[in-house]
């Protein structure tokens, strides 16, 4: 098993075999997480700090549970309430924490590239828990594991990613990962929510949702990022729901056994019909949350092994 990375900053740096290694390990954690005793000692004695410069409940909880199940000492820092308010720079904050010798740093930041910048300044392993509109690698990995378990494979599938692609780090990481695993990717959404020259990423772009969903195996919905919507990207939520919200009628164009995914939190009635989201025959949204813990356990386990091996005096 090889995974030669110091940090997990993005999918961009991972190879096909890195991804497979990570998902294979995550698979075993997923099974273990269903047992009464979920505990392992993989991170025993190690310190994990979760630094969230942007609000998050789900991702932070997922990383926290993952670290605790592996035996790490986990600390959560709500960075919005802390020293950045007093004018400290990102790098100074990082250097201060670094001096406390953490082994794993889980970072979310509202600016693209901020986690890369921070990783250059610290000695521990850094996991990107989402930076701006850039990447959210553990989300793409948990989506991949969910697809692999539901479909039995992670290649030669036809996958539609729908909605607000422009503001979504989830979309970028998924486009990279699913592309590396040799799937057909379709992007569906209004042109105002498509990044420029996105067609050069080896994807097909559709602004008609029914055409975009034609025969696909996986329908991946994205959250409409209302907080990043200053400037009229769409005329109204109701028109958006009419044209791009996933409901039974639009889903009928997909393959009959297509699964429905959403990274959460959902805007019911904006991008997805509530009943459909709850339909256990189609929706794997709860599985995604479950796989999230397993994938984060696997990622931290692999990075911790490399981190320990790189310490002076390591055998």
């Amino acid at each position, binding site marked *: 098993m090889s995974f030669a990375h110091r940090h997990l900053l993005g999918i*961009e740096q991972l190879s096909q075999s890195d991804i497979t290694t990570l998902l294979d390990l995550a698979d075993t954690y997923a099974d273990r997480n269903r047992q009464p005793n979920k505990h392992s000692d993989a991170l025993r004695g190690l310190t994990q700090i979760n630094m969230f410069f942007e609000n998050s409940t789900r991702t932070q909880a997922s990383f926290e549970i993952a670290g605790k199940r592996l035996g790490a000492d986990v600390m959560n820092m709500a960075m919005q309430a802390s020293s950045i308010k007093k004018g400290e*720079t*990102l*790098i100074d904050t990082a250097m201060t924490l670094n001096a406390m010798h953490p082994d794993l740093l889980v970072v979310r*930041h509202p*600016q*693209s*590239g*901020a986690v*890369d*910048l921070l990783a250059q300044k610290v000695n521990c392993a850094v996991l990107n828990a989402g*930076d*701006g*509109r*850039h*990447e959210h690698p553990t989300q793409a990995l948990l989506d991949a594991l969910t697809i692999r378990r539901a479909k039995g494979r992670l290649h030669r599938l036809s996958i539609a990613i729908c909605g607000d692609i422009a503001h979504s*780090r989830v979309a*970028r990481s998924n486009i990279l990962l699913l592309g590396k695993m040799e799937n057909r990717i379709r992007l569906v959404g209004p042109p105002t929510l498509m*990044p*420029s*020259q*996105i067609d*050069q*990423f080896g994807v097909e772009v559709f602004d008609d949702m029914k055409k975009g969903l034609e025969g696909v195996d996986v329908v991946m919905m994205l959250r409409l990022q209302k907080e990043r919507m200053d400037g009229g990207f769409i005329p109204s939520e109701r028109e958006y729901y009419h044209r791009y919200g996933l409901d039974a009628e639009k889903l009928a164009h997909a393959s009959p056994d297509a699964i429905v995914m959403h990274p959460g939190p959902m805007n019911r009635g904006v991008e997805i019909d509530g009943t459909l989201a709850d339909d256990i025959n189609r929706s794997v949204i709860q599985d995604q949350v479950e796989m999230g813990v397993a994938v984060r356990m696997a990622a931290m386990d692999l990075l911790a092994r490399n981190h320990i091996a790189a310490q002076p005096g390591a055998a």
Partner: protein
Amino acid sequence: MTHLFTNLRLLDPEAGTLEPAAVLVRYGVIAEVLNHGVTAVDGAEVIDCGGHVLAPGIVDIGVKVCEPGERHKESYRSAGLAAAAGGVTTMVTRPDTDPAIDSPETLEFVTRRANEAAPVNVVPMAALTKGREGREMTEIGFLMDAGAAAFTDCDRVVTDTKVFSRALTYARSLGALVIAHPQDPGLSKGAAVTSGKFASLRGLPAVSPMAERMGLDRDIALIEMTGARYHADQITTARALPALERAKRNGLDITAGVGIHHLTLNALDVADYRTFFKVKPPLRDEEDRIAVVEAVASGLIDIICSMHTPQDEESKRLPFEEAASGAVGLETLLPAALRLVHAEMMDLPTLWRALSLNPAKRLGLPGGRIAVGAPADMVLFNPDAPFVLDRATLRSKSRNTPFDGMRMQGKVMATYVAGSCVYEAN
């Protein structure tokens, strides 16, 4: 006070020649250009130039010296030393300081500081509107009397077309040159990079290159309306070139410049969020870079400048979107510009027209040429000498250069201002 420069190749941008010659300088002025066989003149001290190229010193329009306000980033002393080391004999300085240079009093302060501290010529520009806020024009007449060479709000666009048209009209009556930043401010709002595949991959807010053409189109319409003398500070995209060409063909009093970084780097150089490559406007695609280099070669773009913009480490060691824009360029302008010659995209006389002759002509300055009676502002350089740039060696107080660690060719051997040596390579 007579010097004879011998054993040199004389680069004359006006004649378009590069030939062996000798130059006689008397009391700081070029007295005679002589045959290269002349090795002595009565009463003249001989300076052997070692076979290197002697050219008119660079006239750099758009240098930011951070006085008043942010002297820790760059002072007239440090900028002047950097200019001398870079072969820049005239710095035409920007008014986007804090506070802005928008009153005769501030301009006089700046001029006094410059004369005390800088070993090269300093020609100040003043703001076009008060506080660079785009609302009220500055005292253009008084400022001209105090020595302002041109009027510009720098990278801030005067969005109110009525205000801008009045300022242009008023400037025209005084024969003042207005320098503007062609950019549609709505489209480019919040952008950190140029839109395209790279911006999408990195998830950075981006602006279409079309914003530059839109800004230029608007300005051209206003020049046509007002008849003002106008210079576009930086034209960096292929799409803006036809509009510029048409405006010139229609006889408008318009010229255009481009910063050295847009001629030598492209959008991909930002790579993993390297903030030293964040400039304004953002770096463009390679196709745009080549089109703009060709426009310099053809003369459509008149002027190359360094867009010297000092930023301290604190302003740059931030996430890309938050980081300040700008790069220093005084000391790297010459070797970076020589890349275009070494890449055979233009010859030396053509390059030098854009670096010295054209900017001097546009601002009505006496330098920028090798002619009898012209000031002996000159640079002696070896166009081929290779080196690896180490930013720690820069003389600027701020060392935010994108060229750190890069291989470059072209070394300044000596710089002369009014015949006096202000820099000599050791």
